[in-house]
């Protein structure tokens, strides 16, 4: 029940976030949508992932608000013609993909909501340190490079001249 509520509310809030006129409202809707999806992951048993998702989405929302507030970026008017065309195309693809998933005998969508057993943190930590250690180090190294690159790219050139 929690999973169904979280999915429906998160989808609605995500849709609202695309159409609202002000950035702070869009960010707030996205943040709430992320929290609800974290609740959905929690209901599927992925507790560690839901906690990480809450942390990352909250940090990302705060960064977007700070950047938009500092730079004074705002939304323009939503482009109605392109939106309608994109909506029609995407609804068509959504219908086609959903039809084929349903046509495949329910192998993909026959999952009961809330049926996942809760993962213990020990098992997740063991998976990180034993099965996925190389991937974890690769991601940490990549994150270090990206943080350095982000600082270099976003530096104001005028201060150097």
């Amino acid at each position: 029940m929690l999973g169904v509520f979280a999915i429906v509310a998160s989808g609605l809030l995500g849709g609202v976030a695309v159409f609202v006129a002000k950035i702070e409202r869009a960010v707030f809707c996205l943040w709430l949508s992320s929290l609800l999806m974290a609740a959905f992951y929690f209901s599927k048993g992925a507790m560690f992932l839901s906690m990480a998702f809450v942390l990352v989405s909250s940090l990302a929302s705060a960064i977007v608000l700070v950047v938009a507030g500092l730079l004074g970026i705002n939304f323009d008017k939503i482009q109605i013609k392109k939106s309608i065309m994109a909506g029609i195309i995407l609804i068509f693809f959504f219908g086609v993909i959903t039809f084929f998933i349903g046509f495949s005998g329910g192998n993909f969508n026959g999952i009961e909501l809330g049926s996942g057993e809760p993962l213990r943190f020990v098992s997740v930590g063991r998976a990180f340190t034993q099965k996925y250690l190389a991937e974890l180090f690769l991601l940490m190294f990549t994150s270090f490079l990206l943080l350095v690159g982000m600082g270099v790219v976003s530096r104001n050139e005028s201060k150097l001249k």
Partner: protein
Amino acid sequence: MTSIAFFFLCLGIFTILARRTVIGLLMASHFFTLAGVTAAVLANNSIDSAEDGAVFGFFVLLGGAFQFSILVAFVIRFFYLSGMGNIESLADLKNSG
């Protein structure tokens, strides 16, 4: 249930097409990350694995965070260079070289 992930993917593509600002790109990257993590979690339950889906979803989440950091750097850089947040002017770069 996999349709949920595809719904968020569609929402991200729609955001890119409908919003022509840099914040729209950030929102779309958020939707893409949401789609990837949801697909990983649902795949974990469908193959009845212990923790692989959650770990893989965590990797997808980290990748989304990297993508977000690159986009934020791009936003700041682009704003300093052009003085505005509208990405329509990126098309002019083709003729400016």
